[in-house]
């Protein structure tokens, strides 16, 4: 591990890569603050830039910097305006905004910065311990197990989608897999489902799809419902200092939530959002008496908990991506797509084939967290001025950046028409309350899933691999259980509710 750290240090400390960390954090913070642009949209917008760099290490460092920055920026707008830019920071506004109303905006921002820093750093240490271990286990996997593992990942994402949503999430996953089969096939290079259109020969571009699924519907919602873009003057921010007693009271919260958040982040489908809500709930239950009553009214513990947890979860979500090559969240799915475009295949071989990429990313996580802390503590009052941009200027720019992002990937204006088409579909799906992350994850995993499936089928001349490899069978049974159990629970709950209604 020491050797790896040294490789990582030497790669990450180069002036260019340091510049990438700083740039990523700044861009992420600035854009993450804007309501309506989450980390997924921002990373999707930054992908052409990252691919333009060409060096996978620098590109991944840039993109992960953007990721942390976006989460941090989201917490700034949650605290100052009660308008979370990112779903993962909604829980931050529960106590952050009341603190800002009480005139303690500076203190709230300091606590958020420190909690984020601690969560991210402790998460990075845990990542350093667990990723190599998991990666050495994953090396024993065959294509059959990979296929089964991806099925588990996809069904876990559906299973965590929430009560009553499992079937919908599964439907979106399958739609994503279907979209992934458009274009030249995994096995024989025969074009499939292109309906004779040359533009579809190479399949849909994942950047276009990512933009259409996340950035475009968000922007359209901002247009349709101006209340979502609660921009305004954030006022003057003073009093950034916290006292020693306050630091001592949040220290145990930060410790607990970084570990808990990390492990929630590792689970596929449960990302920063679930980690922050769960962290908030757990800390409220642990707190006693007067402290518990303060939750929701400006408690520093209630602010530190979700902030720590969401940053630790962001780091945790890198574990399945880097060790198994399976993204657990929409954001890591986009990162996976970017890596594939840069000719790096994340997975257990990553640590062996390109240790510099792996370790440089981990080292850059420390540096990124440090940069965010240094950058944000003194500069936050100035950065927060971006929140005063009126929406009449903001929205055309967001739309323009989504168009640019998908155009630069392919240099083809047909791509823009596909973007608008998918954007309309995605908006309708959002209206109908369908989760969109499973669609994108299904789309990105689809090609790999089919490749591994085909390889296993060829090795075992048919479906025998399911029965002959106990681990494959076990994983597939797990996948089935993950989908069936929540559906069964929802079914029982519905039956019970109907019974109550009858009793009236």
């Amino acid at each position, binding site marked *: 591990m020491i050797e790896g750290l040294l490789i990582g240090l030497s790669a990450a400390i180069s002036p260019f890569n340091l510049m990438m960390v700083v740039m990523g954090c700044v861009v992420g913070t600035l854009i993450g603050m804007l309501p309506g642009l989450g980390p997924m949209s921002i990373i999707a917008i930054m992908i*052409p*830039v990252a691919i*333009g760099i060409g060096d996978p290490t620098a590109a991944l460092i840039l993109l992960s910097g953007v990721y942390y920055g976006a989460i941090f920026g989201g917490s700034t707008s949650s605290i100052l305006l009660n308008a979370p830019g990112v779903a993962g920071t909604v829980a931050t506004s529960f106590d952050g905004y009341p603190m800002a109303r009480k005139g303690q905006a500076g203190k709230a921002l300091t606590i958020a910065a420190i909690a984020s820093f601690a969560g991210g750093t402790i998460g990075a240490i845990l990542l350093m311990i667990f990723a190599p271990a998991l990666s050495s286990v994953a090396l024993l996997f065959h294509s059959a197990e990979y296929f089964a593992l991806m099925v588990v990942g996809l069904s876990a994402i559906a299973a965590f989608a929430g009560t*009553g949503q499992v*079937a*919908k999430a599964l*439907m979106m996953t*399958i*739609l994503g897999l*279907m979209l992934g*089969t458009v274009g030249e*096939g*995994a*096995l*024989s290079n*025969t074009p*499939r489902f292109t309906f004779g259109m040359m533009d579809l020969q190479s399949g849909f571009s994942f950047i276009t799809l990512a933009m259409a699924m996340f950035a475009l519907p968000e922007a*359209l*919602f901002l*247009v*349709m*419902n101006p209340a*979502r873009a609660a921009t305004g003057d954030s006022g003057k921010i003073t009093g950034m200092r916290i006292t020693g007693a306050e630091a001592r009271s949040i220290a145990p919260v930060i410790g607990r939530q970084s570990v808990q958040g990390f492990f929630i982040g590792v689970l596929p489908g449960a990302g920063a959002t679930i980690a922050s809500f769960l962290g908030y709930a757990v800390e409220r239950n642990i707190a006693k008496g007067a402290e518990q009553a303060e939750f929701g009214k400006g408690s520093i513990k209630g602010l530190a908990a979700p902030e720590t947890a969401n940053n630790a979860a962001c780091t945790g979500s890198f574990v399945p991506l880097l060790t198994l090559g399976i993204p657990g969240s929409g954001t890591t799915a986009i990162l996976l797509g970017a890596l594939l475009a840069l000719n790096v295949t994340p997975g257990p071989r990553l640590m062996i084939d390109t240790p510099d990429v792996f370790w440089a990313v981990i080292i850059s996580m420390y540096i990124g967290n440090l940069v965010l802390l240094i950058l944000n503590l003194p500069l936050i009052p100035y950065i927060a001025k971006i929140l005063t941009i*009126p*929406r009449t*200027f903001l*929205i*055309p*720019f967001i*739309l*323009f950046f989504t*168009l*640019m992002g998908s*155009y*630069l990937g392919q*240099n083809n*204006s047909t791509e*823009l*028409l596909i*973007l*608008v088409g998918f*954007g309309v579909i995605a908006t*309708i*799906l*959002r*209206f*109908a*309350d*369908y989760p969109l992350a499973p669609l994108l994850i299904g789309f990105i995993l689809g090609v790999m899933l*089919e490749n591994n*499936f*085909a390889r296993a*089928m*060829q090795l075992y001349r*048919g479906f025998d691999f399911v029965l002959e490899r106990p681990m494959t069978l076990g994983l597939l049974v797990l996948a089935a259980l993950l989908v069936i159990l929540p559906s069964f629970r*929802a079914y029982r*709950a*519905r039956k019970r*509710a109907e019974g109550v*209604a009858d009793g009236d």
Partner: protein
Amino acid sequence: MALDRWVALAFVALCCVYGYAAFFTMDDLLPPILQRNPVWPSTFPKILTVLGLVVGLIVLFTPKAPGDGARDGTIDLSRLGDYHVGQAIALLVLMVIYALTLRPLGFVGATIGFLVIGSLLLGERRFHILIPVAVIAAGSIWYLVQEVLGIFLRPWPGFLM
């Protein structure tokens, strides 16, 4: 019928089209040598079709869970009339126009047009800020993409260069 059921119905229809293509049109093109292979290009789509039909029908026919109303913050479809739907559609049309004019008009012209008209549609009338912002943004982004990233973007209309 609620919107999510209509979406499920559309999905089932899509599965039928997709399945028809997978089951009846793809295998004819397969060279004989590949037919001895246990897995064909159509195998995976066939599995997806079956799964998709099953899940789509489940979503279509599951009774709605009680108390599953719209959550706070999300857009409530029953109040669709209160939202600025017209502006959203206008912006979508503008995006299509941008896609069609990007090549003929050149990047700079099309982008300035997009940003200015987009802001106008949203109700911005301060031209003395609007036009300089659009010009500077279009110019600097063109410079970044062309010079820093090295991706070719034609800046001016086709007949000029």
